[in-house]
């Protein structure tokens, strides 16, 4: 039998229910794995083994009483360090919050606790979720378990690497421009960015408020559906939270896709794709057809403007969201500042890393007197146009597909010097956040031994269709690769 740490959450839950393994055993397997690989992978910023152990023991007590285990009890999870956890430091990968201990739980964390959350630790990430490689973490880069010389993607690189390396069986990430889907893609995992407003943002440290969403990073689509049903749903603490009934995502997994109308936006299949990625995606399209789906070229005419619009809107919102880090109420503060001006300037200069500063500068500039109309307002209008593109596409198609990332995992340091090149790696995922629609990334093959992700985009709140299509494709693709021991974490 495969090591417990390498199983899917739903498989483990079965074993727990049948009392074939205990939660404590399961956790030990995962913690041993952490022991073995964490030094090289660096998936976590803070380990919470003690909390996890307590949760696991509690889960076993329930099992012994013959009660059915809570949904997440005894199923070791990694939680991106962007989600506030009461009494457990929450750093956002930043020196600014190195010692920040929240006095409250994010709504999603609270919901998971009710479900018996067994949290291994707070996972590594690009500082304030700004990045696509996890190289922007104050706590050091996370490495891709598939090849330690390569990045796991970002900004949820820690959660993805943890699940891929067996340091957790599933994880919670956040996605503002691709931060769940791209790392999932680069680490051979399933990642879902839900419809904007489906999952509460309360307690998710804000990067770009109008784009941020929390979502699952898992080993298969079933776990993805399972975790989504635990975190989705209306939250009165979040004014942008949608007051809708949460469908049964598990049930949605059943069914076929014959007759499904699949659109392939040609704008997302163009330059920048490596041959390997293109080949893997084309193969997936052939599979769609074999399964009875109708595959046709689609168009999103304004999507070429998405990247530019995103790199105005996101930094603008970020420049305001990050203004609160001033060393007064919490967080890093320089010593001996003579006046407020100095305290602000020096604290923020020393507390933020280069990418965060870059985006604060960019966003502040875009909002500053005389530029608002030309940049921010114009970007919001382009957002309207992109929304329109998707709406008309979805009149014709049930889902749209594209690569998740134009390339597989790239080498550490490869793009650090060139922000624009780095930004390009989100070219396929960004339009989805601008439109607020849901999208899922599933592994669809390898390119030079590195995983490639297929992105499936759906209508607003049509996660059920996304999950069904993803599950059917997952089965058909039969991707069951694990990180290669010789190049991966065992080396």
């Amino acid at each position, binding site marked *: 039998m495969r090591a417990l740490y390498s199983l899917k959450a739903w498989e483990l839950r079965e074993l727990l229910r049948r009392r074939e393994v205990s939660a404590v055993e399961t956790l030990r397997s995962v913690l041993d794995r952490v022991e073995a690989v964490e030094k090289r992978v660096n998936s976590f910023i803070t380990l919470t083994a003690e909390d996890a152990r307590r949760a696991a023991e509690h889960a076993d007590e329930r099992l012994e009483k013959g009660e059915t285990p809570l949904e997440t009890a005894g199923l070791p999870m990694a939680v991106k360090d962007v*989600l506030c956890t009461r009494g457990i430091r929450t750093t956002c990968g930043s020196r600014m919050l190195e010692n920040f201990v*929240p006095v409250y739980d994010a709504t999603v964390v609270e919901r998971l606790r009710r479900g018996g959350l067994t949290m291994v630790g707070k996972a590594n990430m690009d500082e304030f979720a700004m990045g696509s490689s996890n190289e922007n973490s104050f706590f050091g880069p996370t490495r891709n378990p598939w090849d330690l010389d390569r990045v796991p993607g970002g900004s949820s690189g820690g959660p993805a690497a943890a699940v891929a390396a067996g340091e957790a069986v599933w994880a919670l990430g956040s996605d503002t421009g691709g931060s769940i889907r791209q790392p999932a893609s680069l680490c051979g995992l399933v990642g879902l960015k839900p419809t904007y407003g489906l999952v509460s943002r309360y*307690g998710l*440290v804000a990067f770009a408020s109008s784009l941020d969403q929390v979502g699952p990073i898992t080993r298969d689509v079933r776990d993805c559906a399972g975790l989504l049903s635990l975190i989705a749903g209306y939250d009165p603490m979040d*004014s942008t939270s949608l007051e809708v009934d949460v469908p049964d995502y598990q049930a949605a997994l059943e069914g076929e896709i014959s007759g499904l109308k699949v659109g392939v936006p040609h704008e997302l299949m163009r330059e920048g794709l490596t041959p390997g990625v293109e080949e893997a995606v084309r193969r997936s399209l052939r599979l769609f057809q074999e399964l009875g789906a109708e595959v046709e070229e689609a168009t999103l005419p304004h999507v070429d403007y998405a990247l530019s619009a995103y790199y105005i809107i996101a930094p603008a919102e970020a420049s*305001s969201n990050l*203004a609160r880090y001033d060393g007064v*109420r919490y967080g890093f503060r320089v010593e001996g500042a003579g006046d*407020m001006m100095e305290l602000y300037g020096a604290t923020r200069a020393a507390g933020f890393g280069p990418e965060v500063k870059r985006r604060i500068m960019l966003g502040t500039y875009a909002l*500053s007197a005389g530029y608002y109309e030309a940049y921010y307002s114009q970007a919001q209008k382009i957002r309207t146009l992109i929304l329109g593109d998707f709406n008309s596409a979805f009149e014709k198609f049930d889902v749209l597909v594209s690569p998740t990332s134009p390339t597989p995992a790239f080498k550490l340091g490869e793009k650090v010097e060139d922000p624009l090149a780095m930004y390009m790696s989100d070219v396929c995922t960004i339009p989805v956040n601008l439109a607020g629609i849901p999208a899922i990334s599933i592994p669809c093959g390898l390119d030079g031994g590195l995983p490639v992700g297929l992105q499936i985009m759906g209508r607003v709140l049509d996660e059920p269709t996304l999950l069904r299509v993803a599950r059917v494709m997952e089965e058909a693709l039969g991707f069951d690769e694990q990180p290669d021991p010789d190049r991966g974490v065992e080396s």
Partner: protein
Amino acid sequence: MSDYEAVIGLEIHAELKTDSKMFCSCDASFGGDPNTKTCPVCLGHPGVLPVLNRKAVELAMRLALALNCGISPHSIFHRKNYFYPDMPKNYQISQYDLPLGVGGYLDIEVEGEKVRVGITRAHLEEDTGKSIHISESGRIHGAVYSLEDFNRAGVPLLEIVTEPELRSPEQARVFVQELKSIMEHLEVSDCKMEEGSLRCDANVSLRPCGSEEMGVKAEVKNMNSFRALYRALDYEIRRQEELLESGGEVVQETRHWDADANVTTTLRTKEYAYDYRYFPEPDLVPLELDESFIENVSAGLFEMPADRRKRFCEEYGLPEHDAVLLTSSKAMGNFYDAAVGEGVDPKAVSNWMMGELSAFLNAHNIEIENVRITPVQLAMMIAMVEKGVISGKIAKTVFEEMLNTGDDPDVIVDRKGITQISDEDKLEEIIVEAVSENPNSIEDYRGGKKKALGFLVGQVMRKTKGRANPQLVNEMLRSYLEEQG
């Protein structure tokens, strides 16, 4: 007579009368130990989100309607970005190009002249925390360091901006006075200037009389009483006048009213012009305030000060002057209505309230809310005078006692045994006594010296320590003296 005309616009911030804060469920009441009325939301902790308080919106609309503003069918919140230690998020959630209320007006009357003051806008925003400056002066200038208390952070504020249509400190004072009274009557705000729940800033500029274009304006802050408002504006106008007359120039700046020194001083000149980087608050959704919503906040449910004034004149036949004073605050008007409701003479109530009562309030400078006497008690006392149980003179003593003890007038009268003597037999004795002690006064009276009567009345009053019923004593003495003849 100066050759310059003052142009004054006001920016008034009023804390709305809600139980909880604007975007979180913290207690919004004034005071308390520092940082005991906060939560992650109003402390601006990472990850928190605002959720709008419905009551705040309703109160804001109620006032906007009362100020004849149009209610925007679509209004949104913006972020106003600037760094200041009393701002937890270093941005303020406010309204910008789509405020709740626009284009209203308020009519005031100053020295018999009616003035219509335009209301540019009325919008919602959140209050900041409070800074305490540690230095000898307690002023921000020369402070060694400051302390921040966020109890007030996030309390809902209504900002009212007037057109620059006020022309004198007196007009400004009356405008704010009237606005305060309206807000009290609509139960929108407590308007306690001393507690900072009503704050007022002014833009002041001068221009040659007859000229149409605006001069350079200075913004005056920290005027936290009506007196301060008047004197600060008066000072600022004279300051600018002297500057201009001596060929100088007014600089655009923010000036701070120093109530002790009676001057305005430069608070800060802008190294860079303000650049607030307003943009729509992505954490809040738009307000679409339709008719139905406007219905149930309509100000019509409340009596406005002007209407009350009218009613006092017509219903109770009060002179304008009385009505104005009795409606200067809602509590005053309520007290009056309650007392008159007891069925005593309205003018008598007015006289007592504008006389003894007001004097007492000023002397101890307290609000009528905190006075010990109740409207019913005042009415009781007036009734006793009407029934002749006590004389008007005694009443003053009784009233003072009531103000100090809060006891009912009859209790006081009994305790002091100071009911009026109208018992004729008893008075008879005293009169005989008085006359016999002053035989020559009888001569004088007979000799036609009518004032001898007055002298004897005085004697009787002295013997009764003023408790004798004067009219009765008068009549009895006259007839007694006649009989003697």
